[in-house]
């Protein structure tokens, strides 16, 4: 079953075609890596899927809803973690969890129980009453992710979730992604760390707004007779003519 479908999805800003008629499908429960160099159009494509931006042409479906007409319905079945940390810095850890869980309509009692569970799992019990802005970056990202999946969405969209953190924190972060995936949450993740691409079930590589390849990491390595995803990526990225923006 496909939970994300895109057909010729296109976004233009003036003369600039940020996303150029991409088509792909993501299966339920999959960890889907959405790769591409900076400025390839990953974030724009993801924002369209999340209902934050309207496509110029083409259509898409997320969780069975049309991204153009039913974007508000999509929003209750997805979680989203943006590239820029965007929880409320002036709210405490548990307050951020409570706020977003409340917005998604989770009942008060359930929020309490689940918050305690989550804080224990993350080892954040001591930070429960810490203002989020004073947490270290790696912790902030873990918290952002946990908030994004707190309401058990069908799909979670992660936009470069591990930018700027050290390898061990990245590793822990991927453990959390796997754990969410095992709960049946489909994970749609953009990254430009190629070692992370290896963790994905399937990956697509975007170049200049188009999807160049889409397959599992092992198949891609076979096709391009490359030792790692890094090598595959470099061959693809070389085709880019668009300047980094």
């Amino acid at each position, binding site marked *: 079953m496909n939970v994300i479908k895109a057909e010729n999805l296109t976004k233009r800003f003036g003369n600039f075609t940020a996303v150029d008629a991409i088509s792909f499908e993501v299966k339920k429960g999959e960890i889907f890596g959405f790769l591409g160099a900076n400025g390839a159009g990953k974030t724009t494509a993801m*924002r369209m899927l*999340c*209902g*934050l*931006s*309207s496509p110029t042409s083409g259509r898409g479906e997320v969780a069975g809803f049309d991204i153009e007409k039913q*974007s*508000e*319905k999509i*929003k*209750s079945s*997805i979680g*989203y973690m*943006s590239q*820029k*940390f*965007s*929880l*409320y*810095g*002036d*709210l405490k850890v548990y*307050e951020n969890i*409570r*706020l*977003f869980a*409340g*917005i*998604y*309509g989770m009942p008060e009692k359930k929020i309490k129980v689940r918050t305690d569970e989550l804080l224990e799992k993350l080892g954040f019990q001591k930070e429960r009453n810490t*203002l989020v802005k004073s947490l270290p970056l790696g912790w902030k990202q873990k918290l952002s992710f946990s908030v994004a999946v707190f309401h058990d969405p069908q799909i979670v969209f992660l936009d470069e979730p591990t930018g700027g953190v050290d390898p061990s924190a990245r590793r822990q972060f991927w453990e959390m992604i796997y754990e969410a995936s095992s709960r049946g949450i489909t994970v749609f993740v953009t990254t430009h760390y190629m070692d992370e691409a290896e963790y994905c079930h399937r990956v697509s590589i975007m170049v200049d707004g188009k999807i160049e390849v889409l397959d599992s990491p092992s198949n891609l390595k076979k096709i391009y007779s490359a030792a790692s995803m890094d090598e595959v990526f470099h061959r693809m990225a070389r085709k880019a003519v668009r300047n980094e923006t």
Partner: protein
Amino acid sequence: MIKYLIEKEFKQIFRNRFLPRLILGFPCITLLLMPWAANFEVKNINISIVDNDHSSCSRRLADKIVSSGYFKLIDIAENYAAALENIELDSSDVILEIPDNFESDLTVTDKGASLMISSNAVNGTKGALSASYLAGIIRDFSAELRRENPSPQSAFIPVINIIPQYRFNPNLDYKIFMVPALMVMLLTMLCGFLPALNIVGEKEAGTMEQINVTPVKKHIFILAKLIPYWVIGFFILTLGFGIAFFVYSLMPAGSFLTIYVFSSIYVLIVSGFGLVISNYSKTMQQGMFVMYFFILILILISGMFTPVNSMPWWAKIITVLNPLKYFIEVMRSVYLMGSGFTDLFIQFIALCVFAVIFNVWAVLSYSKKS
């Protein structure tokens, strides 16, 4: 859902290091200082008297002028030219020239005397007011003289005495006029600027996007932004009532209820207006300047400082579209005249229309998509 959003807004306001102090300090400073400073009463007028008569009568007039409290005698000049020099040096504002034979004309020959008042009208209002104060004192003086020496002739001259009675503000105390208007200004500034900056701040911080990707309804989000400022508006108003009573012994002649009802509509108008601006602004700077532009114009043509009736026709048309104008009318008439709901029906309708327009606009202009 809205409960969580409102809770968040309040936590953010109280956790801010600056906002609670602003919300408390701004009304106190404005209401404690401004009525004394922003005052149209003309006092301490410097006067030069050219006394050509040197009589007891002319001295008595001079004493009377000084003892009125409005005038400060700068000098008794030799002649008019010397007095004019004082005006040119800006050390004097008015000249009163008393002709020779002043006393004898008045008391002996009984043919009446003429005095000349010359007033510096660089500041038109002050010039005109000084001259009319002075004329008033002189009129008083002549009445005094008449009572003292009732000449057989003057007894038959009918005199028209005009005794002005200033209703609702008997002593023409400018402070009483300003305090209600200042409360309006406070509500406008605080409840307009704060929400305007709030949403733009969220846009800049990126938290707006996180909210936009949730299923929160547009009107719920806007309402959650409005309600805290509504509460703050009530707080400011109550604080204002307190200061008006304890410092200026000013109690509304009308009912508190009327003021609270109108204020609650008014706060919705300005907060809604602030939210509209924030929806169209990408940065704090932009939001701030656009807001400032509108607030400045709205305050200046609201009738707060200058009466609407004396504005040119085009400005009067703008005032019809100015919610501030209606609310200032309401505040002044309830505070000073004791007007009730039935007297303020037009204002009530006008304010309700503004409230609906701005808040619907705020919801419509808030787009969860970019």
